[in-house]
């Protein structure tokens, strides 16, 4: 029997157990925390990762599952939301099963909300603007978007967003998205003014 080998076995077993415990107690909890944080960040327009929604870029709103999945990935997403497509008008209607206020609460998930815009209505406007921008930028032939809540209905038109951003395609880049879409939304006054400019309230 090789005595050296015994020593190696003991040293390696020790390394193995230390590594195992480190992974279980440090690495995995950190990873889970990071994943949870990331998932929460996706529910907020200021922190959403553009790559999380970039995969839904499409030339046609008729690509039903893609269109639905895009809105399911945007802030205010809810399990029971439903959709209606209007192929002739190139319009999409998203029906939220709750009131605007209830939907807004689901987006208040990160610390960033405490820093910016505590006003619930502003948070709602910010999220609606963000969702509409994402919709028009990623679904290239969508002309109209209606976001319908139990107590409110908001309508957006591509032509308005086009004049606001001049070229929606240029937004389809992680840095541009943050710079042009997310960062301005941090400013309450900008949100208020832009919402008045772009949203049609029914």
């Amino acid at each position, binding site marked *: *029997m*090789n005595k050296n*080998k*015994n020593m190696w*076995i003991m040293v*390696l*077993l020790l390394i*193995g157990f230390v590594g*195992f415990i480190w*992974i279980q107690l440090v690495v995995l909890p950190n990873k889970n925390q990071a994943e949870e944080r990331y998932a929460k960040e996706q529910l907020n327009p200021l922190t959403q990762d553009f790559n999380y929604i970039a995969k839904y870029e499409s030339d046609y709103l008729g690509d039903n599952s893609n269109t639905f999945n895009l809105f399911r990935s945007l802030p205010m997403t809810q399990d029971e939301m439903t959709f209606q497509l209007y192929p002739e008008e190139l319009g999409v209607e998203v029906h939220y099963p709750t009131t605007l206020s209830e939907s807004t609460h689901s987006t208040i998930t990160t610390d960033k909300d405490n820093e910016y815009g505590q006003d619930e209505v502003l948070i709602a406007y910010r999220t609606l603007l963000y969702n509409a921008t994402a919709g028009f930028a990623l679904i290239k032939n969508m002309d109209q978007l209606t976001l319908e809540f139990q107590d409110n209905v908001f309508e957006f038109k591509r032509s308005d967003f086009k004049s606001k951003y001049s070229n929606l395609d240029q937004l389809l880049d992680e840095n541009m998205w943050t710079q042009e879409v997310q960062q301005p939304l941090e400013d309450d006054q900008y949100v208020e003014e832009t919402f008045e400019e772009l949203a049609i309230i029914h």
Partner: protein
Amino acid sequence: MDKIEKHIEWLFKPYKKNKQIQELKEEVYSNLLARKEDLLLEGYSEEEAVKNTIAHIDSVDHLIEENKKVDINRFLASLLQSMTLYSVIIWILTLPLSLFPEHLLLSYFFMILSILLSIVYIVYLRKVNNGDIKIKYMNIKRTRELKNIAWKIWVVFIIISLLSVTGIYFASNLWFSRPISISGPYQFAEIALRYLTPFVTVIIPLTVNKARNLIEESEVEVYE
């Protein structure tokens, strides 16, 4: 076939029929016949002489050149020691798999295997240290063949695994000559792991290989 011949057939049953074995068989047979004749001359009855002759030899293991006399406890202790070492090394290498839910079990498997092997190794080590000797013949030629077969099967297994992983991930890309796209570091790691994990089975041929080498190391004495 007389009783002595039958007995010889039974003795040589575990061995392959080749020229060497055939010669050995004939030699043993003529020796036994000579012994029977002697016994008959001494006044034994035919039946008694045959019975006595058969009782004279109950194994031919020591006559086979390729057979090595091995202390089986020492042999197993050494083999378990090496297996434990292999297993622990593979366990450490597979530790990062804990981060990938799909491969998690492989890492746990090697952890449990390492612990079990260590325990069994300690049991055999104590047997050896207590002077518990158990002699057995082991056929070195057969283990050499086993070693070759084990390595061949393993190589074939690895080739099939690598091809099938390539098939699953890239066949349609290659077939339609589309570029291969890997979306991020996590997906790259997933694919790399699919390629690498089959290699942990190397512990099987390594063990057989070690067993083959250990027969010579654990040999108690060479038969003369």
